[in-house]
């Protein structure tokens, strides 16, 4: 019996100790009419058979060189990261409610919080949320709790459309209105609004925006400050190795910072599991959603760690909790912490700079192809929009046969976008030969038309 250790003698002895004759008798309180069966499911199979089936499925598609981004990126993950993260002591541990039995996970989470506050220039970090988009929804709810008279959140059209859809699903249920702010089509940047928004609690500031363009965050943060709006920064954690930390934006800095943690040692895995991070000012800690670890001492006065301010959370506060979140993304945070430590400051800066430089090279290479344009003038980090002479989905499909996942057609993220636009991302994995190969394959595919 897979994973059930009892032999028949043990089973019989246990039934006798309980005082029943058969295993089925243990279910005798359940009305007979409700007892069902599931024989429509397949029979089980051995481990070897299972592995064979899944290896075949995983190998159906030849590996692709990945130039797709839009929030998830093909970065190198040092071998040490998952070597440690998948140790059974991390992999199979429970949530660290029993502090004395969980000092490893707790200290690691404390280090994660420290890394994230330093990266983002903020004072407080939680121990993760589900993903970047749901973390942004939590940040909006937090902003509304901080501004209880407000009803609106200002959302630039430069926010990734699939993130915007998560806000559309989660926020209106609580009576919150989402108001869109337009981007300038030439620069690809957010236009400074000319009007006031008296019912708004916060402005979301994605740096980098969904076209890959860098925003003038200081000017935008200034504008928000002068209109008494909270600033919610949305950032790529790897880009923060180079870019100005949100804590330094404008005069006062961001109030809440969120982002997708996937670039920090988390495999692409078709979209998850990833993790969302959320950092904020110290004043706001009691409105923070999710778990928080603190450093303290034990009964002997030695340094120890534990979860803290649990009265914010659902298992204590129930309907009054700051969020319903319970299970978070602990194992991914374990990997991210080891990843951050392994790369260190220098390794992170090198990876970020390399991703940026390769994106610059590829952008220049591709812009030389006939009929290919760069629609946005603003500066970019590792991702940019390419305007193709043909619809982007068919070009992307054509490049699959050449071994490239060429990017993400914007129209697949937002049906209102230009069907010719393709969002292309580089990382430190993008070698020069890959850039040349991409350019010649694209030239070939475009030439076929």
């Amino acid at each position, binding site marked *: 019996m897979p994973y059930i250790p009892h032999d028949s003698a043990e089973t019989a*002895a246990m039934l006798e100790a309980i005082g029943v004759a058969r295993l089925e008798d243990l279910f005798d309180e*359940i009305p007979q009419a*409700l007892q069902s069966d599931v024989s429509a499911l*397949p029979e089980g199979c051995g481990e070897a058979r299972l592995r064979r089936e899944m290896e075949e499925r995983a190998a159906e598609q030849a590996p692709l060189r990945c130039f797709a981004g839009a929030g998830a990126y093909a970065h190198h993950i040092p071998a040490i990261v998952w070597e440690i993260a998948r140790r059974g*002591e991390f992999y199979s541990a429970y949530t660290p409610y029993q502090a004395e039995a969980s000092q490893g996970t707790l200290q690691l989470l404390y280090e994660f919080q420290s890394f994230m506050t330093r990266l983002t220039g903020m004072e407080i970090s939680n121990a993760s949320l589900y993903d970047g988009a749901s973390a942004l929804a939590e940040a909006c709810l937090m902003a509304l709790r901080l501004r209880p008279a407000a009803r609106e959140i200002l959302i630039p059209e430069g926010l990734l459309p699939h993130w915007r859809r998560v806000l559309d699903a989660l926020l209106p249920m609580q009576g919150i209105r989402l108001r869109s702010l337009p981007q300038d089509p030439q620069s690809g940047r957010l236009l400074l609004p000319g009007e006031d928004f008296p019912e708004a609690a916060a402005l979301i500031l994605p740096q980098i925006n969904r076209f890959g363009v860098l925003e003038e965050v200081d000017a935008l943060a200034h504008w928000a400050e002068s209109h008494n709006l909270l600033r919610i920064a949305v950032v790529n954690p790897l880009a923060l190795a180079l870019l100005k930390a949100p804590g330094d934006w404008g005069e006062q800095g961001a109030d809440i910072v969120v982002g997708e943690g996937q670039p920090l040692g988390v495999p692409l895995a078709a979209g998850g599991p990833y993790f969302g991070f959320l950092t904020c000012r110290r004043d706001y800690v009691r409105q923070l959603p999710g778990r928080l670890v603190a450093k303290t001492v034990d009964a002997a006065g030695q340094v120890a760690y534990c979860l803290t301010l649990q009265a914010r959370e*659902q298992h204590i506060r129930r309907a009054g909790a700051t969020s319903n979140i*319970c299970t978070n993304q602990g194992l991914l945070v374990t990997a991210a912490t080891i990843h951050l430590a392994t790369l*260190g400051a220098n390794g992170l800066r090198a990876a970020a700079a390399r991703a940026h430089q390769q994106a610059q090279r590829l952008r220049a290479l591709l812009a030389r192809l006939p009929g290919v344009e760069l629609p946005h003038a603003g500066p970019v980090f590792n991702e940019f929009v390419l305007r193709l002479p043909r619809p982007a989905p068919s070009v992307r499909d054509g490049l699959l046969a050449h071994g490239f996942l060429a990017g993400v057609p914007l129209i697949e993220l937002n049906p209102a976008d230009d069907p010719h636009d393709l969002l292309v991302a580089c990382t430190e994995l993008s070698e020069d030969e890959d850039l040349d190969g991409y350019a010649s394959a694209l030239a070939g595919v475009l030439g076929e038309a």
Partner: protein
Amino acid sequence: MEETIFACQHEGTPVELELAIPAHLLRDDLPLPNPSELEVLRHYTRLSQKNFSIDTNFYPLGSCTMKYNPRIAHEVATLPGFSRLHPATPAVAAQGLLRSLAELQGWLAELTGMAAVSLSPAAGAQGELAGVAMIRAYHQARGDTQRQRILIPQAAHGTNPASARMAGFAVTELPNLPNGDLDLDALRAALGPEVAGIMLTNPSTLGVFERQIQEVAALVHGAGALLYYDGANLNAILGRVKPGEMGFDVMHLNLHKTFATPHGGGGPGSGAVAAASRLAPYLPVPRVVGEAGSYRWESHAERPESIGQLSAYAGNIGVLLRAHAYVRRLGHTGLQRVSAYAALNANYLMHGLRRQGYTVAFAERRATHEFIISVQDLHKASAVRALDVAKRLLDFGIHAPTIYFPQLVPECLLIEPTETESKASLDRFLEVMAQIRREALEEPERLRNAPHDLPVRRVDETLAARRLQVAE
């Protein structure tokens, strides 16, 4: 001497940066350490050794289903052909993955007796939120907009009321009877035209099967409301009782409990949602649709009634692949054995502890996959609390059961051994609990000062909250 990663302050090799980014958008410094790879390896390996885990310890942790996490599931879920797939990969290049997820959707529908499944919620609480949001969407689509209230038993998981609130509902809590069943008179009194639905677990958090569930369903449906099933306790009835056949309209499954995917020190989970046909249109997007050779993610345009998208992509795919592997490996007979042996282990421990003199809550009832004991007698005799029993268990290498939940039972411990523990492991737990009971009566200080043999002594959580040192 405290070890910390922030003590590793090598300069490292400075990086030459040539950037086409305006200087005012850049940062000046990056205040992170530069440890060597070996320093990192040793530091985090040592940290791991300070943890309890399924791989090293027994976890009789009620309501959490801490069973063995089969390594084959990890191996197949992390095959490069899956782990390197970008979420924007077109369906034609992801058929192996999509086929596996389509199978899982079908298997979960069969196991739950529901019409359709969405795999996208990232954890149980997000599944709950999806479910109550679907209840809201159902009533609104019928123009029944006055239903603004959700009923929840007092003993429910805290996520239930918190999720209902996040979906914009008010919450009314319902009492249980002394025998553990729901108080039907209180239910009748609470039902009315403003009630949207009820959230229930069955078996309940009291460790007993709700025997009146068909009557509850009839009452709730009769009042125009819907039933939500919290799948936290599905391990107890896996392959035997289908929530859809009990009368539930929508539910979530905790794949990281029932389907043996790892807890990872707090996550990731997966809270797949299953719905009866009248609620299926509202399931969160995206689901896998299609047939062999042409599977794909459905588009938003195809699902205009959906409550929408709860995370940026399609959920915790790596967790879903592990759950897929678990079902494939066990098959229908293996899944039925799960609930049989989960119940056997729980009832065996319940009887064993009762023989030792422990007070079992609902002792006249059959235990399900878990049960509750109360140590209020020890508290009266020697001021020992459930917390002290829990901390003393750690000294024996046994993770503490869930304590002070459900709050209806004073000084309680909620014990769930799961089916993957052997009789020898359970017998050792009984021996340890007998010793702890003796200690509680004869030398209670030993419990109050526990743990004694862990990397740290009892941790000062009050000081932690007062100082609030949460980052270096």
